[in-house]
């Protein structure tokens, strides 16, 4: 015979419809977000992983000062420590006339780092160019548009994704890619052959006969490769000017790392939400058990087993979680997947992808949440229902018999004491509420703070430039410009420890510099605050840096911190620099100048470091994440409102009889609100006061963790305006909740107190 308890389920569902709808929506929303992200991320990660073979992505590349002789290539290829083939992958870079950007141009690849055609067609004539799809989107360029480069007009014939530039990093040392002011493009081999030799970058890609099994093997092989390359290049009157193995090449690996990292992050986020949902169910079911104690006692007394009752009270929460997960998955696979995919396509130059059924995503978003809710609620129910039938019938549900009420100072007014009692009575609710609010606030604050952090960073960089113009020269050329001041510079690398190895710019600054005002001595250096903050280096510490393409190490004593947020930099006396790096006494690398230097031929200028170069991080993050920030705020607010509403509603339902009794005694609704809603309001305010700085701290720590994987430093800053906005959002949200709760209290009937329930 069918269990008659099942017949109660529809009416129980109807009675608690509001709660179930809210939890269902909460679950469906969270799962859809995570599922959409996981499906899109999973599909894209697969497409990305497959692209290594499909598009024959390199195992690394190096740049030489001059074009390599065939003998040099053969000599490097000829090793018993690795089996590799080297391919030319030359490029030129030209500024674009139509948009404010630089385009890196390759010839159409045939062997390695093949391109994926996203729209239009590959170039077939000397006036055609195919440009990166992402760069085209960001600069509103379309197939058929004109683009002028190096004085020549090209027709954009196609939009492509270059497999070795899924993230548009112009330099391996960049903290962030720049898909707005930097792009890649391909032209025909004939067209490429017309570019002047002095503009060519002699980049070579290498590919092992067999792909390394993991990064450890890749590291070993690449070190062997670098040893051989460094050994052979000088023999052929050449020099290595750049070297980057695939496993450290941000332009290739950043996308995969980011997509996989995102999936893990949203997954963790879902689990936290599911645990909160499970506890909400645990608290509400616990209340229901208290309300239905007599019924439960009677059922148990008439022969129903504890497990039958447990199963009954588990059914609705499990069904609601399951329904939420299913609907969330449907939404995830349909609506949210496209949204997530467009977010990825908005950041990365990815090849086309096919949506793949992701069993892992289904397990993560459906099976695991159901198991979490099941376990937490099962534990609560088995504990709650382990009392004897008689205890239920007598409503004697307290496990700790004769629990003494703790004393409150009677000098405190009765209403305040009443509020305190409500507070202590509902501590589990309030703890869950604080955790939920913290989570909501982290999301809201993240949504609110990123913009100011990036703006602040951009502003700090702009106002703390070493000089308005900074030129790096290919040769030591003099200038007549009176503003110019010579400096020496080189790039070293940090030693890999808890943080990845990354590039450090070392400047040799002239004595009494007009641009870098530092009391530099021969035996001490100053470091930028960016370097100090990221690596936790203080004045007096000793730092060790290594050659960029070698193993020689240099030690420096830190004499002070210089406020320069742009890059990780070491400042030292120019003479000391030249001595330390075995340069001539008069050696210099470039000029600082407050006015443009116009008397040096472009031929001798390697690069001019501009504000655009230094602010690409903030620009790209704003572009990639700007739209996402509002979603974080909205989702955070929804989460915040739902959790606080559900838990405060539970408090009122739990105390319905007391509320009814106070009404009978003659308490006004405003006074009752003052007891029950005001307590939650006070908790909300305290929660905001605690969780806002805590969320800020958590975000700061997350930023530090996030930045560990990136070269450079983007400092996290706290903003009063963000605190105020978050607090106002929190208070505003609670005002809406309070209105709903006021209605709920008003609706508590006087007759509730007359029900035959004894607590």
């Amino acid at each position, binding site marked *: 015979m069918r269990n008659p308890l099942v017949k109660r389920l529809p009416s129980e569902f109807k009675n608690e419809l509001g709660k179930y709808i809210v939890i269902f929506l909460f679950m469906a929303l969270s799962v859809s977000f995570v599922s959409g992200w996981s499906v899109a991320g999973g599909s894209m990660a697969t497409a990305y992983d497959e692209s290594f073979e499909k598009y024959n992505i390199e195992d690394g590349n190096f740049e030489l000062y001059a074009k390599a002789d065939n003998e040099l290539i053969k000599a490097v290829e000829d090793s018993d420590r690795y089996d590799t083939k080297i391919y030319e992958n030359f490029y030129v870079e030209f500024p674009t006339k139509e948009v404010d950007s630089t385009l890196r141009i390759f010839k159409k690849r045939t062997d390695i780092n093949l391109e994926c055609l996203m729209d239009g067609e590959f170039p077939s004539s000397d006036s055609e160019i195919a440009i990166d799809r992402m760069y085209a989107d960001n600069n509103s360029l379309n197939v058929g548009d004109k683009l002028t480069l190096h004085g020549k007009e090209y027709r954009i014939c196609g939009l492509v994704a270059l497999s070795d530039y899924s993230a548009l990093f112009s330099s391996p040392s960049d903290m962030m890619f720049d898909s707005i002011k930097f792009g890649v493009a391909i032209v025909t081999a004939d067209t490429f052959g017309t570019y002047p030799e002095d503009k060519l970058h002699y980049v070579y890609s290498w590919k092992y006969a067999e792909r390394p099994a993991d990064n450890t093997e890749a590291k070993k092989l690449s070190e062997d490769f670098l040893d051989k390359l460094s050994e052979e290049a000088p023999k052929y009157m050449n020099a290595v000017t750049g070297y980057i193995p695939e496993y450290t090449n941000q332009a290739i690996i950043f996308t995969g790392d980011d997509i996989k990292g995102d999936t893990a992050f949203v997954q963790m986020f879902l689990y936290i939400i599911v645990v909160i949902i499970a506890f909400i169910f645990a608290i509400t079911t616990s209340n229901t058990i208290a309300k239905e104690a007599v019924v439960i006692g009677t059922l148990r007394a008439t022969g129903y087993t504890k497990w039958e009752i447990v199963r009954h009270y588990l059914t609705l929460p499990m069904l609601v979680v399951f329904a939420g997960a299913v609907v969330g998955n449907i939404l995830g696979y349909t609506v949210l997947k496209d949204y997530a995919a467009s977010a990825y396509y908005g950041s990365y130059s990815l090849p086309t992808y096919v949506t793949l059924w992701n069993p892992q995503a289904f397990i993560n978003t459906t099976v695991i949440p159901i198991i979490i809710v099941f376990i937490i609620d099962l534990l609560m129910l088995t504990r709650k229902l382990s009392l004897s039938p008689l205890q239920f019938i007598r409503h*004697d549900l*307290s496990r700790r018999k*004769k*629990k*003494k*009420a703790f*004393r409150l100072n*009677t000098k405190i007014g*009765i*209403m305040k*004491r*009443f509020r305190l*009692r*409500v507070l*202590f*009575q509902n501590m589990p609710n309030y703890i869950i509420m604080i955790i939920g609010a913290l989570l909501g606030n982290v999301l809201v604050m993240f949504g609110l703070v990123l913009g100011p952090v990036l703006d602040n960073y951009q502003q700090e960089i702009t106002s703390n430039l070493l000089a308005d113009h900074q030129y790096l020269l290919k040769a030591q050329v003099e200038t007549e410009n009176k503003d110019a001041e010579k400096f020496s510079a080189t790039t070293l690398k940090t030693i890999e420890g808890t943080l990845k190895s990354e590039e450090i710019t070392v400047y040799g600054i002239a004595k009494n510099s007009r641009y870098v005002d530092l009391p530099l001595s021969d035996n001490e250096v100053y470091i930028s605050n960016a370097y100090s903050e990221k690596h936790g280096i203080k004045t007096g510490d000793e730092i060790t840096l290594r050659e960029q393409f070698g193993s020689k190490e240099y030690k420096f004593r830190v004499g002070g911190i210089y406020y320069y947020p742009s890059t990780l930099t070491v400042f030292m006396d120019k003479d000391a620099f030249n001595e330390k790096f075995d340069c001539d006494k008069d050696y210099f690398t470039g000029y600082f100048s407050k006015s443009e230097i116009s008397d040096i031929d472009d031929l001798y200028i390697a690069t001019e470091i501009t504000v655009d170069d230094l602010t690409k991080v903030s620009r790209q993050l704003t572009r990639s994440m700007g739209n996402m920030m509002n979603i974080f705020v909205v989702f955070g607010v929804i989460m915040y409102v739902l959790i606080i509403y559900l838990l405060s509603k539970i408090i009122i339902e739990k105390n319905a*009889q*007391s509320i009814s*009794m*106070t*009404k*009978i*005694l*003659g*308490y*006004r*609704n405003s006074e009752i609100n003052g007891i029950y809603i005001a307590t939650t309001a006070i908790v909300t305010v305290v929660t905001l006061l605690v969780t806002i700085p805590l969320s800020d701290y958590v975000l700061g720590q997350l930023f530090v963790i996030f930045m560990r994987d990136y070269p450079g430093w983007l400092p996290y800053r706290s903003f009063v305006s963000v605190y105020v906005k978050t607090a106002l959002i929190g208070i505003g949200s609670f005002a809406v909740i309070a209105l709903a709760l006021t209605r709920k209290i008003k609706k508590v009937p*006087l*007759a509730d*107190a*007359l029900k*035959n*329930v*004894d*607590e």
Partner: protein
Amino acid sequence: MFLTVKEIRKHFGEGDSRVEVLNGIDAEIEKGEICVLLGPSGSGKSTLLNIIGGIDSADSGYIAINGEKTADMNEKKLTLYRRKHLGYIFQQYNLIPNLNIKENVEIGAYLSDNPLDTDEILKTLGLYEHRHKLPNQLSGGQQQRTAIGRAIIKNPDILLCDEPTGALDYKTSKDILKLISDVNKKFGNTVVMVTHNDAIKNMADRVIKLRDGMIRKNYLNENKIAAEDLDW
């Protein structure tokens, strides 16, 4: 007349399940009287008490205290009416479970401009040493005494008691009835007590017997005896 019950009618349910619970109840109770509403289950006595207490509303008729009709009152005025004039004692005590004994009494005191002294009341009720305990740490009789304390601390004009001894044993019931009687003597409150225990009518000044929603008897008790002398 202090408390007037005039032509009170009340029904529950509709159609076939419609039940006329009160069929035109008329009664008048003097200030300071102990009035016992007596009757079997379903006679309408608790419904009448709830209507007097402003917890429930009548279909027609009215309740008046000192000429002030409850039917004319909106929700706010009804709240004020309960606050100002009434004290309640229920069969199931209805104490606030998360407040201790003293606090349960104090929430009654809070509603009055001139409450009685809480500690005095607790001592009178024999609850002083239990004042820091929670309701579920006390016996039924002690809980009911707490409920009485909460009701009388604001010194209400009318004390409404709905089966105040219904959940108690014989001895404790007598103690509670004596307490109600003592309160009535000491403070002069009008007491309206619902019971199905026929013996309790003997301590009343006025007895109103109800059956099927109608008053069967309404008389002044000439042979009133002290609560402690009751027997059943």
